[in-house]
């Protein structure tokens, strides 16, 4: 019997209309867990490095995390993996909600899509019965709308739907896959789904998921629930309210937006409005949110309420979470009312709420500066919200200027030319980033921005405070109750970290400590992405319920395989290294690993090089960021060595790259 996993993947070839249930190798979980880990292995093995993201040969993999569908609280993430049309690298965006557990209950660990359907279809999976159904009546329909229509026509209110909107159908490079209160937004996976002619995947399951050590599992899960309640009663002192609790940032509940609106940049990620947040704004925005927020919404088996149903008069309701509350508002210099309306449109169209607003702000900046002109914007309204709507309507249809903008700021700038590249200034690896522009280089964030392969800061940061606390007493108070640290030394790093003076950024934490802090933060995310745990209760917040000390026990109890902390660290390293190997094979090198040039005003080129050198060394990568032979050997990734040698990426005798 297989525990936690079902032991089967569902393979669907849309070119041939073939559906197969394929048994998987039971040893893989012990090496890679599941989710991201096994997704990366499949991508590595089955999709050649030179395949275009929109080629029928490319795979779109919907992987459930190893612990999804087990009693482990908050293990509900679907990890979707493919090559990104925007970055051309591996994309592994994820979504919470209810889809992954439902796929497990239907009897599958992964859904692997290949090929390309000649006409628009959707997939209906009900336990062993799988149908490829016509979706021509859903063409051009919104993602939420599509989901509603399908549930009604199948008469299956309990089924779970992951769908694309018009943006995905038209291969917008920042198209999302939407699913209830959640979405896999980053990396343009919706466009890959659209390229395959797949409008939606609908799942309903009624099978068991088995647990190896039942009593131990339930006890450990109950402990997690107890700690969640404890943390709810003990918010962290001395940080903005948005960082004090657990769960994903409580944007739907917290009205105090001073931190975001005054620290993050408005428009095309340029303008800081340090005096924006006033009592009048707070009053108005509180009213705006409360008058449309119908209800808080959770994901499967999670007590948090990070999302909300937003119901605006005369618009279809939708569900929202996290920082998408503010992205449209801030990019367009409007207010929360307008932002929530635009987000409704963006959700139905199925676009990434980070990239889409920024792409539009970028276009308007080019227009203001005369690089784009009136003839690029025929009939565009005068007001900001009207302009954003006008642009989004054209982007998702790839009409006129929309066709260029639909490739995201990096590629659009290449096509526009005339110096437009300077306006696509907030990208890493060709992907739009959070609009943050700060003063002094922060070594920890420098490394995370450079080397993060999810290319999204919120998906590799966490656990370690983002900034030093002003007073030593506050820091002492914080470390007193910090069992999550994998090693006591992290307490010292934090205790000695000062806002000013010798022990402050950019030279403190030291290079060595910085490497360790970054490694810890990232490691926890790689574990989550393989177990399907929501990082909102694990890698992302301060003092989360899940950490290095209880996760091995829980995974062990549920799956039945032996696992200790050392073993889990090794699996996380293996998965992290394999993701890097996929990207190295796609051509990624040190030169690609840099933050937006204007992210910090004060930069330290020499220190930055040293940081990168030291971190690569720490990770067992060579100077180009390529995993070394001995690292790959140690992680049992011999098949990567073989491939790298064959391609000349690694040389036989040394670790020099070509």
């Amino acid at each position, binding site marked *: 019997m297989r525990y936690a996993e079902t032991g089967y993947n569902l393979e669907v070839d849309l070119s041939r209309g073939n559906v197969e249930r394929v048994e998987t190798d039971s040893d893989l979980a012990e090496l890679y867990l599941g989710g991201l880990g096994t997704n990366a292995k499949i991508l590595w093995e089955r999709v050649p490095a030179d395949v275009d993201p929109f080629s029928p040969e490319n795979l779109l993999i919907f992987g459930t995390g190893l612990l999804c*569908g*087990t*009693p482990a*609280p908050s293990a509900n993430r679907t990890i979707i993996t493919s090559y990104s049309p925007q970055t051309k690298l591996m994309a592994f965006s994820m979504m919470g909600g*209810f889809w992954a557990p439902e796929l497990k*209950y239907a009897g599958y660990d992964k859904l692997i899509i290949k090929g390309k359907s000649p006409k628009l279809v959707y997939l209906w999976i009900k336990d062993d019965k799988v149908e490829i159904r016509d979706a021509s009546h859903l063409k051009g329909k919104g993602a*939420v709308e599509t989901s*509603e229509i399908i549930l009604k026509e199948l008469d299956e*209110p*309990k089924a779970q739907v992951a769908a694309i909107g018009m943006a995905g159908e038209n291969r917008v490079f920042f198209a999302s896959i939407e699913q*209830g*209160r959640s979405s896999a937004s980053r990396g343009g996976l919706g466009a890959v789904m659209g390229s395959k002619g797949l409008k939606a995947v609908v799942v309903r*399951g*009624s*099978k*068991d*998921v*088995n*647990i190896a050590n*039942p*009593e131990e*599992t*339930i006890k450990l899960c*109950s402990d997690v*629930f107890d700690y*969640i*309640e404890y943390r709810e009663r003990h918010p962290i002192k001395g940080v903005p309210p948005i960082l004090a609790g657990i769960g994903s940032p409580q944007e739907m509940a917290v009205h105090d937006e001073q931190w975001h609106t005054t620290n993050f940049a408005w428009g095309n990620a340029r303008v800081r409005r340090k005096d924006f947040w006033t009592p009048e704004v707070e009053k108005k925005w509180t009213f705006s949110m409360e008058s449309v927020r*119908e*209800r*808080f*919404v*959770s*994901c*499967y*088996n*999670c*007590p*948090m*309420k990070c999302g909300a*149903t937003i*119901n605006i008069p005369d618009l279809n*309701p*939708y*569900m929202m979470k996290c920082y998408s509350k503010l992205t449209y508002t801030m990019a367009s210099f409007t207010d929360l009312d307008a932002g929530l309306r635009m987000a409704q449109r963006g959700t139905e169209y199925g676009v990434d709420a980070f990239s889409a607003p920024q792409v539009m702000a970028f276009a308007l900046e080019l227009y203001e500066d005369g690089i784009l002109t009136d003839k690029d914007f025929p009939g565009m309204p005068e007001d900001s919200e009207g302009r954003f709507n006008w642009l989004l309507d054209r982007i998702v249809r790839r009409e006129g200027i929309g066709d260029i903008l639909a490739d995201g700021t990096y590629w659009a700038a290449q096509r526009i030319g005339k110096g437009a590249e300077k306006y696509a200034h907030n990208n890493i690896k060709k992907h739009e980033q959070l609009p943050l522009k700060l003063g002094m280089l922060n070594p920890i964030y420098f490394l995370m921005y450079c080397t993060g392969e999810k290319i999204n800061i919120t998906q590799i940061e966490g656990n370690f405070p983002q900034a030093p606390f002003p007073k030593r007493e506050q820091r002492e108070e914080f470390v007193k109750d910090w069992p999550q640290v994998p090693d006591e030394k992290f307490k010292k790093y934090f205790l000695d970290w000062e806002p000013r003076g010798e022990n402050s950024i950019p030279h403190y934490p030291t290079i060595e400590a910085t490497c360790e802090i970054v490694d810890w933060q990232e490691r926890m995310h790689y574990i989550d992405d393989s177990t399907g745990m929501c990082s909102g209760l694990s890698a992302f917040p301060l003092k989360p319920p899940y950490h290095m000390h209880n996760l091995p026990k829980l995974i062990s109890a549920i799956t039945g395989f032996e696992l200790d902390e050392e073993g889990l660290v090794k699996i996380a390293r293996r998965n992290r290294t394999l993701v890097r190997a996929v990207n190295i094979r796609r051509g990624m090198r040190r030169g690609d690993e840099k933050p937006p040039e204007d992210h910090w005003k004060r930069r330290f080129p020499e220190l930055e090089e040293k940081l990168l050198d030291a971190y690569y060394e720490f990770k067992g990568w060579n100077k180009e960021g390529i995993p070394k032979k001995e690292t790959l050997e140690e992680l049992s990734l011999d098949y990567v060595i073989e491939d790298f040698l064959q391609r000349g990426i690694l040389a036989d005798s040394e670790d020099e790259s070509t």
Partner: protein
Amino acid sequence: MTAKKKTKIIKTIKVDVDLCNGCRTCELICSAFHAVPRYSSNNPERSRIRVIRDPLRGVFIPVYAGQYTPAECTGRDKYIIDGKEYDECAFCRASCPSRGLFKEPDSGLPLKCDMCESDPSLAEPMCVQWCLPDALTYEEREVEVEDEAENEQEDVEIGLESLADKYGWQKILDTVARMSKKD
């Protein structure tokens, strides 16, 4: 007939639909608790509590499995509460032919909430213990009920009378005679 009174413990799960976040943890832990061996698997489809969910309309209603019924209702209800419309069967606890809820997925046999009765007994049913938003809370109260021994006599008489109406006393007597010989 004057019945003797005695006290009885009534176990209640109070459902506050306003506090429900729709996470379905109750379904998961219910099915795990009733797995054999206990907690060895889970499957919400086997759960004796289901959350009727329509998140876009803000509807989350945890419903416990109640009695099995072999027939559908003829009339159905619709509720409008605070402007929200609730599905006709949203509040019904029956395991009923009109819907898929509360049936073992393998056998189709009806499921019914047993308040997690077990030995040793739990302080609270598992769904209540694992409901952190407190949409589900457990209450016990004592009520006075009529002595069941007397009620039983009355129940038997009512039952027999209705059978006799349908089949005639002779048939009933023959059947009773035949069945009691088997013992």
